[in-house]
C-alpha cells in the first residue's frame, strides 16, 4: 500500500463530566490509504464518532482531552497550531454529519454556505464562489440547482440537504472525506442514492473516505477496509470481505451474528430467532426453531377495513383548510392470533398513523376496526378505554416511553391499577413477575428508567404492554432505535413471547431485514395506501409492485460479495401525501398473484424511473 493519507496511532480521548476525567477512547489506530474507503464500525457509545471528531480536533477543548497521534499527509494534526488546523479543515479534509436537518445554518442560503469554504480557503470573490457552488450543486445532482442556490435550508428535504452537505464538503476538493453516519437519518431508498453519490464522487475526485457507521449493510456496500470499534478500542481491522467471511474476534462474530441479512430467509416460512453469540468468548448459543404460532383457523384478532385517516393543513390569515395529508387511505388487512403482520414503508407513508388509528390514539376519518369481532370505532370513550386493554402498543424511542419520574415497577404495575384489575400488592407482585418474564431481575423494580440502557428499557416497555394480557401488540418501530446486538435479543424475546402467549403483532417498521426475520405476513405501504400485501416469503421472494421492488433493491446487504453496482439510481424524492382539499382519492384495483398475495395495480407514473431502477 502507498503511504497512507491519514494515519491514526493510539488515539485517546477523555471527557470531563462533573469534574472527573473519563477516558472513552483507549488508543485507536488505523490508516486510510489514497483513494481508499475505510469504515469505522461499532455500536452506540463505542467511540467511533468521537474518533472522527478528534481527528479534525472538533471536540470542545475545555471538556475534552485528546492524545496519541493523527498524521495527515505526513503532518501531525494534534500538535498543529489553530491556524494550521483551520487551513486543513474544509480544505484538504472535509466532513459530513449524521443529521442533515440540523447540519445547515437555517438563516443563510445554501449557496452562501457552500461558497463559504471557497472564500475562506481559495480566496474567491463571493460571486465566483457562488458560481462554483452552482457547479457543485449540479455535481451532487440537485434538480434546478440554479434557482435553488439562493434558497434557505428549510425548503430542502433530508436527502437533498445531505446532498448540499456533500457539495459543501467537496467544495475545495479534499483529499479525505470524513462521513459520520451520513445516511443513518435517511430513508432506505434515499440512503441508497446518497451512498451511490459518495461512491461515484470518490471515483471522480480521487479522494479517500473515512466512513463512520453502525450499519453492517452499509459497510459491506461501501468499504474497502473495515475497522471494528468496541468500547473505545479498535478490536479488529482488515479488508471488508475478510472481516465478513472470517471474523477473528469474538465481538466481531457476535456483531455479525446479530445482523439481519435480507434474503437469508429464502425457503423458510416461519420467523427465525437470531443466533446468540457471546461477545467476549465468541461461543454460539443454541438456536431453537420457532414453533408454528399462527392460529389461522380462528377468527382474526384484528380486522381492519377501509381505514382512512386524514389531517387538515390550515394556513393563511383565517386558518382555512388549504390541504390535507392523506396519511392513511382505505387500508384493509387482518391479523390472526399468533401471527405477525409487518407494515413496512418509508417515512411519511402512514404506517405509524395506521397503528395509532387502530388504537384510536388518533381518530380516523372512516373505516372499521374489528377487535375480536367488535367494532372499535363505535365505542364510546369509556368502553374504548376498557377495550384498549386487549391491544397494547410498544413505541420506537425507549427513552421517551417511560415516565422518568416513575420507578419501573410502578410503570409496569400502572396498567393494572388504572383499570382496577389488582390491588397495589398484587400489582407489585405481577410487575416483578413480568419483569422476570422479559429477562430482568425482579429487584430492578425499584430502579428508575434513567438507570437502564435502551434495550433494557424496551424490555420494560414490553413488560408493561403485557401486564393487561393483550391479544394484539402494535409495535411501532419497536427495535429500530436499538443497537444490532440488542435488537437481536429483543426480537428473540418478542418471538418467545408470541409462542408463549399467542400474541398477534402488528409490526410497524422500515427495517426490511428485521421484518423478513420476524414476520409471517408483510404489507407494503406507500403514500398512505397498501400497495402490496401477502405472506412474507411471497412478498420478499417475488415482489410485484414497482415500489416494493425499489424498496427491496435499496436495502444494503451485509455481504461484500453481493455488492451491486448501483450507478444510475434515480434522484427522485419520496413523494408527499399532501393533497388539495378537494382531492378525491382514486379508485384502486387489486390483483391476487398467489394465495394471499395481493398487489395494487399501478398506473403509468410507475413506468418511468422506478422501473429503470429495478432493471439496473
Amino acid at each position, binding site marked *: 500500500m502507498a503511504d497512507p493519507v491519514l494515519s491514526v496511532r493510539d488515539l485517546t480521548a477523555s471527557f470531563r463530566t*462533573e469534574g472527573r476525567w473519563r477516558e472513552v477512547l483507549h488508543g485507536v489506530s488505523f490508516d486510510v490509504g489514497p483513494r481508499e474507503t475505510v469504515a469505522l464500525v461499532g455500536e452506540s457509545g463505542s467511540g467511533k464518532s468521537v474518533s472522527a471528531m478528534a481527528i479534525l480536533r472538533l471536540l470542545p477543548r475545555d471538556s475534552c482531552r485528546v492524545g496519541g497521534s493523527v498524521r495527515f499527509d505526513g503532518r501531525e494534526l494534534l500538535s498543529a497550531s489553530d491556524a494550521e488546523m483551520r487551513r486543513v479543515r474544509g480544505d484538504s479534509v472535509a466532513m459530513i454529519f449524521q443529521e442533515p436537518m440540523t447540519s445547515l445554518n437555517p438563516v443563510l442560503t445554501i449557496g452562501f454556505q457552500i461558497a463559504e469554504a471557497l472564500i475562506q480557503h481559495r480566496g474567491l470573490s463571493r460571486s465566483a464562489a457562488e458560481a462554483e457552488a452552482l457547479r457543485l450543486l449540479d455535481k451532487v445532482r440537485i434538480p434546478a440547482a440554479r434557482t435553488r442556490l439562493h434558497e434557505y435550508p428549510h425548503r430542502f428535504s433530508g436527502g437533498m440537504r445531505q446532498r448540499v452537505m456533500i457539495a459543501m464538503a467537496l467544495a475545495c476538493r479534499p483529499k479525505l472525506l470524513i462521513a459520520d453516519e451520513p445516511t443513518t437519518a435517511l430513508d432506505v431508498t434515499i440512503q441508497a442514492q446518497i451512498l451511490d453519490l459518495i461512491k461515484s464522487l470518490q471515483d471522480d475526485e480521487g479522494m479517500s473516505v473515512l466512513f463512520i457507521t453502525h450499519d453492517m449493510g452499509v459497510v459491506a456496500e461501501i468499504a474497502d477496509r473495515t475497522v471494528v470499534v468496541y468500547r473505545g478500542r479498535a478490536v479488529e481491522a482488515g479488508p471488508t470481505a475478510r472481516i465478513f467471511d472470517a471474523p477473528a474476534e469474538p465481538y466481531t462474530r457476535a456483531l455479525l451474528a446479530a445482523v439481519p441479512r435480507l434474503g437469508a430467509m429464502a425457503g423458510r416460512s416461519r420467523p427465525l430467532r437470531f443466533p*446468540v453469540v457471546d461477545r467476549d468468548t465468541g461461543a454460539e448459543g443454541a438456536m*431453537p426453531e420457532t414453533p408454528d404460532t399462527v392460529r389461522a383457523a380462528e377468527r382474526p384478532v384484528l380486522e381492519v377495513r377501509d381505514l382512512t385517516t386524514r389531517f387538515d393543513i390550515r394556513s393563511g390569515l383565517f386558518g382555512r383548510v388549504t390541504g390535507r395529508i392523506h396519511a392513511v387511505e382505505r387500508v384493509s388487512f387482518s391479523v390472526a392470533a399468533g401471527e405477525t403482520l409487518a407494515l413496512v414503508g418509508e417515512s411519511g407513508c402512514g404506517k405509524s398513523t395506521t397503528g*395509532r388509528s387502530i*388504537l384510536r*390514539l388518533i381518530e380516523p376519518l372512516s373505516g372499521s376496526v374489528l377487535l375480536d369481532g367488535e367494532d372499535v370505532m363505535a365505542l364510546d370513550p369509556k368502553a374504548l*378505554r*376498557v377495550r*384498549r*386493554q386487549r*391491544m*397494547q*402498543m410498544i*413505541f*420506537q*424511542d425507549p427513552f*421517551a*416511553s*417511560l*415516565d*422518568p*419520574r*416513575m420507578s419501573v415497577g410502578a*410503570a409496569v404495575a*400502572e*396498567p393494572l391499577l*388504572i*383499570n382496577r384489575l389488582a390491588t397495589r400488592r398484587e400489582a407489585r407482585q*405481577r410487575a416483578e*413477575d413480568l419483569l*422476570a*418474564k*422479559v*429477562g*430482568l*431481575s425482579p*429487584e*430492578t423494580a*425499584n*430502579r*428508575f428508567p434513567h*438507570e*437502564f*440502557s435502551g*434495550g*433494557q428499557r424496551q*424490555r420494560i*416497555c414490553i413488560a*408493561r*404492554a403485557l*401486564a*393487561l394480557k393483550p391479544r394484539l401488540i402494535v409495535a411501532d418501530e419497536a427495535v429500530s432505535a436499538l443497537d444490532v446486538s*440488542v435488537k437481536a*435479543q429483543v426480537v*428473540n*424475546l418478542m418471538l*418467545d*413471547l408470541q409462542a*408463549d*402467549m399467542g400474541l398477534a403483532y402488528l409490526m410497524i417498521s422500515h427495517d426490511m431485514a428485521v421484518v423478513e426475520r420476524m414476520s409471517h405476513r408483510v404489507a407494503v405501504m406507500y403514500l398512505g395506501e397498501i400497495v402490496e400485501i401477502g405472506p412474507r416469503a411471497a412478498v420478499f421472494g417475488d415482489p410485484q409492485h414497482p415500489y416494493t421492488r425499489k424498496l427491496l433493491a435499496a436495502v444494503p446487504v451485509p455481504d461484500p460479495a453481493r455488492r451491486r453496482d448501483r450507478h444510475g439510481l434515480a434522484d427522485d424524492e419520496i413523494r408527499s401525501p399532501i393533497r388539495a382539499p378537494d382531492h378525491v382519492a382514486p379508485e384502486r384495483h387489486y390483483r391476487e398473484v398467489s394465495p394471499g398475495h395481493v398487489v395494487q395495480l399501478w398506473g403509468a407514473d410507475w413506468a418511468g424511473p422506478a422501473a429503470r431502477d429495478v432493471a439496473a
Partner: protein
Amino acid sequence: MAGSTLASPSVEAPPRAPASPGRETWRRFRRHRLALASVAVLAVLVMGVLVGGLVWPVAIDDIDFAAQLQGPSWDHPFGTDDLGQDLLARMISGGRISLAVGFVAMAVASVIGIVVGALAGMSRRLLDPALMWLTDLFLSLPQLPLLLLVIYLFRDTLKAVFGVQGGVFVMIVAVIGGLRWMPVARLVRAQFLTLREKEFVEAARSQGATTGHLVRRHILPNALGPVIVAASIEVSAAIIAESTLSFLGLGFPPDIPTWGRLLFDAKDHLDVAPHWALFPGAAIFLTVLSINFIGDGLRDALDPRRVL
C-alpha cells in the same frame, strides 16, 4: 404465567447505584455553590423577619425627636428616621409584609398560570387559541401603569372591607398575582404540549388511562420542574413589584414600613441620612438576589439539559 422465565434474558449488566430522581436533583443543586449560599442567606433573612421581633423588641412607632436621622449605633443598629423611629425594628416588621407579598403573590400567579396553561395545553380545539390570545394580551399590558391604576381606583373600597393593612395586602397580592401569571401559563402550556405527545403518555393512554389520570400522574409531575423554577423567579419579581409600588408612594401606607416604603420615605433625606435608604435597599437586593440564585440552582438541578 407468573414465574415462567423465558430463555432470552438481558445480557447487559444490571444498572448500578440506585438513585431516585429526588436525590439526584439535590445532588445537582448542591453543585451550584452560589445557590447553596443563597439558601443560607434567604433562611437568615426569613428567620430575621419572623423571629427578629423577639430578639429586638423595639416598637416601630416609638417617636423620639432627640434621635432624629441618626446613623447606626448600639442603640439603633440600623439608625433612625426623621421621626427618630428605630429602623431595625421597622425593617423587621415591614420585611414580614414584603416577603409575605412575594410568596403569596407567587402562589396566586402560579395557581392561575398552572390552571390556564393546563387547560390550554390539554384542549385541542378552541380553548387553546382563546386562552393563548388572552395570555398574550395580558403579556402586552403595561403592568406597572396598570398596577398603579388599579390601586389608585380601588384602594379606598378595599380598605373599607379588609381594614388598612389587610385591604392593601389583599389588593397588592391579587393585582401582582393577576398580572404575573402569564409566563407560568405559557411555560405550563408548552410543557403540556410536549409531554402529551410523549410516548409514555400515549402508552398510559393506550392502557386505558383517563385524561385526569394522565394529567395528574404523568404530565403535571413532569411539567413541574420548569414551573418551580419560574415560580421562584416570580417571588423576586413580586417583591420588586411591591417595593416599586411602595417606593412610588402608592403601595402600603406609612404606618406599614415595607422595605419599599422605607426607601420612599428615605429618598428625600439621602444627603444627610444615606443609611436610611441603604439598609432597606440592601435587604431588597439580598432577598431578590438570593431567590434568583436559588432559581438558577433549581434550573440546573431540575433540567440538566438546559444551561441558563
